[in-house]
Structures are given as structure tokens and as C-alpha cells.
């Protein structure tokens, strides 16, 4: 073959190596499903649902944890934008994605899992995170895994931010929060409780202590004023966040007999249901738009009404009434919905003369919150929005001050847990680049990349399957305790529910095929370098070897016809049989050291016992791709490459070097 090659060279014909052995097919290019696109944290929903169908709960959970370190928490309180985009809605109802996430998280809790080992520190740099809410925790989790030192500062005596201080335990039991925070501290993250940054320890001091980057994730805990007369005058007027924080800190004293909560978000519903559980006789919610516009989760509203909360829709406070320094009631006015405002929701307009009074001794306003900025020095230079939130670069989350990043509610205003988690990831990525002195500006939003791809699905012929509903605690049991209301799916329910997934797209992204193929025949390629850097892969290609390799050796060769004109303009033709280059073992020379087995990434080499205690290596030539690394590593010279023997290389060397 060598001589042939030289002849060809003389004729100026290029002959490439037979490529048979190395080529691969692309079997599937993945498109993200709509649920994943909808998730701010980009969780691989379709993939974990697929794993649940297969009963692989651990694998499903591991996959969720790649994008969300708080699965048990999100599985309970997430606003699940994924379900709103679920393609099954076009057939019947969306898949219960959120509850399935909770199912796998709880499934792990029930087992005794080995606690994680601390991550080895590979970088001297330390990062300070201010606030232990979901944004801060997610960022800490990402950064500790990159080998940095991470300290989280929390002004409250407990960690978790609004998860612990705001969301009541009947919705989110404290054990779940503690367990998921423990999973993060086990990795080496230090959480310093009861330390208010800016007061107990200054930013300058932290910089002196060697903290190189800061993540401001202080949340939005300061209730907004109603701006109605009387709101500062009477006892019994308590802001929603303060109220829930007190209850969540263990103060279970009944606040009063009759309670009015003002607002329509999750926090308003939480405050009303909490007040009922504390033994208040009557609880009203006053909301100025209709039920359709109410931002709280629908199921929350339904449950609140079942428990006995009375909701006044289309009503707004006018005046707080008082007697002897105490709240006595509230004057309200009826509203109607007018033109849509800038948020797209229809603006409520008061109806003249429709005033009415609700009697109450406690009023809990829960209209909105803004960040409490009392921790910043008076002369700070942070750029803030008109709502007192931190202004940041929309891609890098960097504030105007170098080394300071902001995210979560402190940046967006009151928002959701998944958004805070997504921000935590983005900030971790930015801080990593910042500390590595890389250009921050160069990051592209991996989630927005995902968002750009559309996905069309054929739903014709899909049969409706009723959605599974998880059981709930009975109303009687609820009212005098903070026991969890929503209960978990059973294993059978979870699998049945997961089977409702339409599996938008051919592949479930789970990558189990790669891990599962012992022969390493399936490979993934990661085209997005940036995505790889931050450990997120928005797109990949699956590969398997071409079929010729499956054929028996003698049928494997490929015929190639080469034609050329010589100097006399005569047609010349040459037929060549190209064979793949593969390696084989000369069994008599192999002494079974096993070096080659270790070096073969394709697992083509195995050690086979021949006689008692004697092993020799064997190469599966249908898998071998002929790279020759095993040939190079073989100390006895037992492994040889077909068409590419040592002898042939020697000949090539000689002919090169002796040419004059």
C-alpha cells in the first residue's frame, strides 16, 4: 500500500486514510422542549420526567440538581411556568411537573443518603454572599463547586431568606428547607447567621479579610405603604412580611379576632391562611382586581377559600378606622376594571359612592415589597432604580461598582423562587469570570439561547389522560396546626403522571445512553464552549459509529476508484480496497499487563482469561477506531495496527531519511 501511495503522490493524487473506522452518524440534534424553555433556571424537565417513567428516581433527581439545588423547595412552592407552557395543555391538562419534582426530592429524603463530602478548595479567592435566600444559596452552591471559598452572611438567626421567614410551614416544612441547605453547607459553604452586613461587619472590613467579590442577594423585605389615611396611627396594623416572619420565628400568638389582609399575591394568601391557623375568627382578603388577575397560585386561592378565608375582589382600602389607638376596621371602595395599564393588566377604577366598611382589629397590608437598604452607608454609590432595587447589567448581573453583583428580589423586586435561583446561577458564572479576569461582557445568556429555539409538536391523535392529583390534608386537620397541606404522590401515581408527558421531541436529554453504554459507542458533542464552561449544555449531538463496523472483517472494506490522466493524456484507473485501520493483539506476545485496557477510551479492549491465572488482552475490532494509542503504550509490542505496523512506519522513516 505504501508504494501505491508514492505512485499516487507522483501523479499528484491525494489519498487519504480510510476513514471508515472513525466516522460517526449524527442521530439526533436535540431541541429543548417548551417546559425547559419556560423554566428560568432551564431545568431539563422532559428528561427528568422520562427518567421517572423508567423508575430511575435518583437519576431524575441528579439531573434536576444540575440546574436547581433546591428541588424539594421548588417542588412545593414553585410558580411552575413550565406547566403553563406544557404542550399537553393542548390535549387536556398540563403534566404535574412541579409535583413530580417534589416526588423525587421526597423519595430521596426517605432514604438514608450518604452526606456529601466537602469540595476541595482549588482557588484562594473568597466570595461573600449577602443574604441566604434562594438566590444566595444557589450562587454559593455553584461557586463552592468551582473550588472557591464561599461565605454567606445572613442577618436573621435562620437561613433560607423568604423561604423560611415568609413562606409558612404548612406549605413548606422547615425540615425540607434545612435538609436542602444542609446539602449546600456540606460542600463547604459557610453560613454566618445573625450577621447583618453593613452593620455588624462592613464591606470594607470584608474586603480587608480577603473577600474578592460580593453578591448582594438581600431580597425585598420592606413592605410598601398603602398611602391611605390612618395607616400610621393605630396599633394592630402590621406589615405582612413582619407578621409572617414573627410567626415563622415561633410567635404563634393570635394577633386578633378579625383580620383583613390587603393584596392578591402569594404573600397575602399566606398571611390570611396563617391568621386562620393562629385561631383568628374571621379573615378577609381585599384585592382590587378580579380573581382572574390575582397573582397568587390558583390552587393557593382555592385552598384558602376552602379553609374559610373570605376574599373581597374588586375592592380597595380608602381609610383605616380606629378606636382608642387601636385598629377598628377599614373603609373600602368598590372598583371596576378599566383600560389595561403598562403591565397589561386592566387598571382598577373606583366606583364613586360604593364605600363600605369591614370591621377588624388587625390589618395586614401585603401589597408589595422593596429591598431594605438600611445596610448601605448613607453615601453609597450603587445605582438604584426608582423602586430601590439594584440596577445591574441584564446579562452579567454586575452592579455599577466593580466586584459587586446583585440578583434575586433585591434586583428584580418581589419575584419568585425559580427566578432567584436562575439569578444565583448567572451571578456565579459572572463572579467566576470576574475572578478569572475574563471579559464579563462576553457571556451570552445561556437561557436566552435556549429560549430562541421554537419547537413544533404534532399532537393529533393524542388521547386525553386525566391528570393525577396528589392528596391533601383534611380541612379539620389543617386549621389548628401548621402541618403540610399538600401531600406527595405515591410511586405509582408519579409514574402514571410522568407517562402523561408527550416527550416533545425524540430524545429525553437524559444522557443515560452515554452513561449506560459500556462500550462507549454513544458520544455527545458540546458545541457551545461558553455553555460548557458554566456546566450547562443547551444543545448536543448524539453519535453512534457507522454501520460498516458491524460487518464481518472481510465485508468491511470499501472500494474506491481513482482515475487520472497521465502525461500522454491517457485515462488511467485504479481500484483500491480501503480497509479500516484497527488494532489487534498478538496473543503470544501479550503478557496481560492491562495497560492497554486502561488507555482505551472506547472500551474496545478487555482482558480475557486464557489459562489458570493467565490473561491476555483482546480487542473488539468493531469498536476500535484505530487511533493506535494502545500500540504506543504496549510494552511488549503485542498490539499492532492493521496496515500500520511498526515495520511500515520504519520503512516510511527510512525512505524519508535516506532520500537525497
Amino acid at each position, binding site marked *: 500500500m505504501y508504494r501505491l501511495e508514492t505512485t499516487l503522490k507522483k501523479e499528484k493524487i491525494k489519498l487519504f*486514510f480510510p476513514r471508515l473506522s472513525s466516522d460517526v452518524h449524527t442521530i439526533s440534534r436535540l431541541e429543548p422542549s417548551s417546559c425547559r424553555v419556560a423554566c428560568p433556571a432551564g431545568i431539563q424537565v422532559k428528561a427528568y420526567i422520562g427518567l421517572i417513567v423508567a423508575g430511575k428516581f435518583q437519576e431524575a433527581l441528579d439531573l434536576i440538581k444540575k440546574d436547581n439545588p433546591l428541588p424539594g423547595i421548588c417542588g412545593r412552592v414553585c410558580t411552575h411556568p413550565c406547566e403553563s407552557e406544557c404542550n399537553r395543555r393542548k390535549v387536556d391538562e398540563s403534566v404535574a411537573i412541579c409535583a413530580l419534582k417534589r416526588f423525587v426530592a421526597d423519595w430521596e429524603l426517605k432514604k438514608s443518603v450518604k452526606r456529601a463530602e466537602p469540595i476541595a478548595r482549588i482557588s484562594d479567592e473568597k466570595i461573600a454572599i449577602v443574604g441566604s435566600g434562594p438566590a444566595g444559596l444557589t450562587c454559593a452552591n455553584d461557586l463552592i463547586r468551582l473550588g472557591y471559598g464561599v461565605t454567606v452572611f445572613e442577618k436573621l438567626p435562620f437561613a433560607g431568606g423568604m423561604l423560611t421567614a415568609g413562606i409558612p410551614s404548612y406549605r413548606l416544612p422547615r425540615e425540607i428547607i434545612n435538609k436542602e441547605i444542609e446539602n449546600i453547607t456540606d460542600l463547604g459553604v459557610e453560613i454566618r447567621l445573625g450577621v447583618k452586613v453593613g452593620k455588624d461587619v462592613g464591606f470594607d472590613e470584608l474586603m480587608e479579610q480577603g473577600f474578592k467579590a460580593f453578591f448582594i442577594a438581600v431580597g425585598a423585605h420592606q413592605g410598601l405603604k398603602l398611602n391611605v389615611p390612618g395607616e400610621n396611627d393605630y396599633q394592630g396594623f402590621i406589615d405582612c412580611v413582619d407578621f409572617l416572619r414573627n410567626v415563622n420565628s415561633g410567635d404563634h400568638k393570635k394577633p386578633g379576632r378579625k383580620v383583613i389582609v390587603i393584596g392578591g399575591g402569594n404573600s397575602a394568601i399566606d398571611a390570611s391562611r396563617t391568621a386562620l391557623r393562629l385561631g383568628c375568627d374571621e379573615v378577609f382578603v381585599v384585592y382590587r382586581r378580579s380573581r382572574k388577575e390575582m397573582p397568587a397560585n390558583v390552587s393557593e386561592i382555592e385552598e384558602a377559600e376552602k379553609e374559610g378565608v373570605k376574599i373581597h375582589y374588586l375592592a380597595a382600602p380608602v381609610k383605616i378606622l380606629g378606636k382608642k389607638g387601636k385598629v377598628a376596621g377599614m373603609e373600602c371602595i368598590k372598583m371596576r376594571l378599566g383600560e389595561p395599564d403598562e403591565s397589561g393588566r386592566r387598571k382598577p377604577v373606583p366606583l364613586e359612592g360604593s364605600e363600605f366598611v369591614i370591621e377588624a382589629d388587625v390589618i395586614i397590608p401585603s401589597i408589595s415589597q422593596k429591598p431594605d437598604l438600611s445596610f448601605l452607608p448613607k453615601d453609597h454609590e450603587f445605582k438604584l432604580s426608582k423602586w430601590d432595587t439594584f440596577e445591574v447589567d441584564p446579562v452579567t448581573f454586575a452592579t455599577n461598582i466593580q466586584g459587586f453583583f446583585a440578583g434575586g428580589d433585591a434586583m428584580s423586586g418581589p419575584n419568585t423562587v425559580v427566578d432567584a435561583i436562575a439569578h444565583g446561577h448567572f451571578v456565579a458564572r459572572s463572579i467566576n469570570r470576574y475572578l478569572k479576569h475574563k471579559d464579563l461582557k462576553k457571556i451570552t445568556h445561556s437561557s436566552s439561547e435556549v429560549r430562541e429555539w421554537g419547537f413544533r409538536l404534532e399532537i393529533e391523535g393524542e388521547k386525553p389522560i386525566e391528570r393525577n392529583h396528589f392528596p391533601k390534608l383534611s380541612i379539620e386537620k389543617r386549621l389548628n396546626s401548621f402541618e403540610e397541606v399538600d401531600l406527595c404522590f405515591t410511586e405509582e401515581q408519579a409514574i402514571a403522571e410522568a407517562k402523561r408527558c408527550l416527550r416533545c421531541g425524540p430524545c429525553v436529554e437524559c444522557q443515560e445512553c452515554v452513561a449506560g453504554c459500556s462500550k462507549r459507542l454513544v458520544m455527545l458533542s458540546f458545541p457551545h464552549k461558553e455553555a460548557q464552561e458554566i456546566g450547562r449544555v443547551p444543545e448536543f449531538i448524539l453519535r453512534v459509529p457507522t454501520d460498516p463496523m458491524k460487518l464481518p472483517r472481510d465485508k468491511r472494506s470499501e472500494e474506491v476508484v481513482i482515475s487520472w490522466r497521465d502525461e500522454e493524456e491517457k485515462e488511467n484507473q485504479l481500484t483500491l480496497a480501503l480497509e479500516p485501520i484497527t488494532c489487534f493483539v498478538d496473543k503470544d506476545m501479550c503478557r496481560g499487563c492491562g495497560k492497554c485496557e486502561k488507555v482505551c*477510551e472506547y472500551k474496545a479492549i478487555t482482558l480475557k482469561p486464557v489459562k489458570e491465572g493467565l490473561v491476555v488482552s483482546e480487542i473488539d475490532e468493531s469498536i476500535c477506531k484505530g487511533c*493506535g494509542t494502545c500500540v504506543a503504550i504496549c510494552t511488549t509490542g503485542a498490539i499492532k495496527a492493521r496496515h500500520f505496523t511498526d515495520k511500515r512506519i520504519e520503512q516510511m522513516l527510512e525512505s524519508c531519511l535516506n532520500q537525497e
Partner: protein
Amino acid sequence: MSEEKKDFKPKVVAFACHWCGVGKNEINAVEDFPDFKLIKLMCSGRINSALILKAFEKGADGIIAFGCPEGKCHYNFGNRNAAEEYKIAQSLIHLLGIEPKRLRLELDFFSEDGKLDSVIKEFVGGIRKIGPSPLRLINENK
């Protein structure tokens, strides 16, 4: 340049993997550098110290090996092996009295214009300066 021995034509062997910047493009360097002999291998992982010593024994003045950049090996891992073998070979040739400059490993796709040319020029220039390999001289004097 003045140090270069005018009448000395170095014999340089280049090993190149099939997929790297050199192997893939069938470099024109072959025409530009008449002293440059190219031996293509499937992967730089095939290179071991025995192969390198063999080439020196057969009279090469310099050996340059090309492979894909780190982490980009077509077979995933071959060039890691090449890098290890390269280190071993360096210490072996040192024992034999061959200058370390005569052996070089380049893991690159050479997608930048002119980079390959300058690497080869620099390498071949370096060999010109130090003259023929001591092994070759011993063999020729026999």
C-alpha cells in the same frame, strides 16, 4: 543567521495526527520546506518514545510531532498519551546526548494564518543552528 551552517541540510521528521492542523490540511509546508518529511499517523497517541528514538537512530536531526489541541483529540485521549510519551522521550534523548531542542510537540489546529509556518521555520532554523544530530554523525562515521 550567520551561525547557520550553510551546507547543512537538516533532516527533520514530522509526525502528524490525521486530524490536527497539519495532518488535515496536508500542509504545503512539504513543498516549502524540502527538508521536512511528513509521516501521518491516525492520532498523536500512536507516538511513543520507541518511535522517536527509532527516528533519531535512522538519522533524523530533529523531530516535530503534531497533534490536536488539548481536549480536542479526535479520539478524546490520544494526545494526552502523546504528551506523556513526549516527556519520557525528552529525558531519554537527554541521556543519549541529543539536545532537547531537537524534539518538539505541537498540539494545535493551526487555524491562525501563518502560525504553522512560523513554528516550522523556528524549529528548522533552530536545528540549522545546532547542526547535525550527534547520533547521525556517529552512524555516518562508521
